[in-house]
């Protein structure tokens, strides 16, 4: 009986459907490799799945994974928070980009006055601006009934172009030769919190306090959603907004707040990622950064539960680090994007498949059981 209950439980179904999605993603990635590369596909796929551990050594790879996982986990938390009210925060990319930009600007211009507190101020700045950007689509949805998906897409473009505009207008921030932001001061980056001791490679290879902060954020978000009245109201609005309205929940407030908090998390993710000295820079760009969409993959893969999101974030970071090695075999590292897209695609219906399979298992067992009874 206990076993049956376990098989029917939602948690198992969720884990199962995520695994199905991942399997489909990797399988299709492998098929694409086979079609394009023939025999080279096998070592390339091996490098991808092993995450580059055999090639680059344990400490360096693990540190890289920790570093890549930070924005993914926080973005995943952001998307899943908005998802609690059935809103899809597609604007995560833009919020992330502007959050990172503002954090860099603060640490470039304020390091002399703020000193070692710079990274905290920069994180707060990035968080606030992310929330501000997400507030607009939320308010437009609540008061003017504008489709949130569309307004978020528009905000993505505005954010990307706005950052490029700000870079073009401020020569103090922009490194003209590469048209991206200057590297921030060593003292203004996130502290290491001992992670460079755990991973004894040059400068910790990017592993820093970010991963610890991301895990703490996950715990806080879990607490807010599961253990507070506010979180309960948000979930009510998502599950049945008419019932929530009837029970006295202010629906508009729930939408706006969930979007704003989600945007704050996205901005925070950007700040955490870009406050590292030798990382990719915020640059003049006319294409939307893809990180927000990857964050959505993480949220969906993690079934919008904080624990799931943390695991999914680590997994996607693992695949991304493995994907860097694809270039050694003559493949574009965009394969990782394809795999992630396929994972999102299969996430959109993998719960249905998992439900069908689970039902079959259950009915088979039930049939066995009833046979036993009749005997």
């Amino acid at each position: 009986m206990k076993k049956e209950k376990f098989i029917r439980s939602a948690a198992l179904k969720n884990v199962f459907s995520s695994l199905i999605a991942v399997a489909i993603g990797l399988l299709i990635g492998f098929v694409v490799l086979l079609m394009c590369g023939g025999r080279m596909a096998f070592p390339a796929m091996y490098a991808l799945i092993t995450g580059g551990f055999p090639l680059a050594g344990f400490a360096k790879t693990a540190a890289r994974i920790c570093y890549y996982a930070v924005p993914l986990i926080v973005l995943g938390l952001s998307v899943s928070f908005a998802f609690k009210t059935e809103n899809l925060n597609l604007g995560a990319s833009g919020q992330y980009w502007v959050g990172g930009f503002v954090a860099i600007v603060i640490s470039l211009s304020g390091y002399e006055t703020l000193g070692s507190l710079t990274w905290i101020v920069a994180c707060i700045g990035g968080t606030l601006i992310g929330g501000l950007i997400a507030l607009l689509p939320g308010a437009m949805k609540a008061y003017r009934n504008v489709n949130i998906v569309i307004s978020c897409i528009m905000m993505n473009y505005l954010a990307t172009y706005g950052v490029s505009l700000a870079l073009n207008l401020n020569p103090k921030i922009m490194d003209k030769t590469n048209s991206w932001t200057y590297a921030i001061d060593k003292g203004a980056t996130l502290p290491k919190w001992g992670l460079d001791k755990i991973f004894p490679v040059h400068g910790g290879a990017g592993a820093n306090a970010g991963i610890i902060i991301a895990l703490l954020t996950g715990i806080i978000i879990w607490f807010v959603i599961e253990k507070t009245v506010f979180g309960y109201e948000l979930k009510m609005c998502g599950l049945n907004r008419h019932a929530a309205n009837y029970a006295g929940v202010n629906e508009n407030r729930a939408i706006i707040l969930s979007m704003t908090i989600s945007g704050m998390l996205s901005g925070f993710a950007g700040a955490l990622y870009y406050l590292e000295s030798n990382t990719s820079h915020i640059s003049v760009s006319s294409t939307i950064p893809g990180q927000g969409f990857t964050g959505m993959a993480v949220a969906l893969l993690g079934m919008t539960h904080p624990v799931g999101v943390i695991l999914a974030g680590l997994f996607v970071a693992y695949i991304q680090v493995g994907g860097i090695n694809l270039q050694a075999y003559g493949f574009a590292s965009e394969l990782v994007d394809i795999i992630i897209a396929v994972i999102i695609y299969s996430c959109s219906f993998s719960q249905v498949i998992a439900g069908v399979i689970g039902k079959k298992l259950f009915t088979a067992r039930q049939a066995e059981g009833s046979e036993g009874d009749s005997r």
Partner: protein
Amino acid sequence: MRIIIFFFQQMLLFTVPLIVAATGGMFCERSGIINIGLEGNMIMGAFCGALFLHAFPGMGQWSFLAALLSGAISGMMWSSLHAFASIKFNANQAISGIALNMAAPSLTIFIGRILNGKQQVTFLNDFRIESLPVFSRIPFIGDIFFRKFYVSLYIALALFVIGAIVINRTRFGMRVRACGDNPQAADSVGINVRRTRYLAVLICGAYTGMAGVMLVVPTSTEFNTSVAGYGFLAVSVIILGRWRPKGIMLASVLFGITKTFAAIYSAIPILAGLHLDAFIYRMIPFVVSLIVLSFSSDTRSEPLASGQPYDKGAR
């Protein structure tokens, strides 16, 4: 005067793909399937059209028409993935569309590098028709519509008119609308809801694939993994046009005008004199659409069953 004519000619180049993509998207949305994946469809269509032109150049207008056809076919194939997920598997339609949007550019980079050695697909653009014999003599209108134009302009108008007639005046169109508003009622009178929705999504794929070719070929000589957000603009054109052909036409012209400013501001003396950054002009279409959406959003004209997977047993 020359600038005005130039402006209108450019505007047509930017409006045509929007009209076609939004008309296609209208079919999909009216049948009750939300399709955010228009961008991905356009990318795949443009990519395959450009590949075709890269491989078989030099057949004059015929190769342009063939490129449009290959765009349509690839758009249909790509959108069938969306149809499969959202109709067969009752998927969350927004998520499936976004996934397809994400996959399309990466796939074009991947395939392009393997076929071509690089992600850009270059092609020869010699499809511009300088002038049409008699009609180009008409003052003003002749200059805009019959000089320095592409065949795609008239194909697009034809596609729009056909689309408008089909959705409003034919049995199939009525069935599509019924499936979008009340699929259970449609099913009860013998309409095959799933098949109608499949057809609508495939029509959408063909239209958007062609729109991708119509965007990339006249305005460029290479395809480089993106269609500059046109698919997303087309989605907001549909919402702004309230899911009706006439509205879609008006909304596309509005967006076409703002896009034109972004593209040719440096050729207009007054605007060039302001010395504003290019990104300001690029932001205009999105700002305008946000403002217009917030003052005209009207859910009464939205298809009632929009975004809901079809459940036979639901009431």
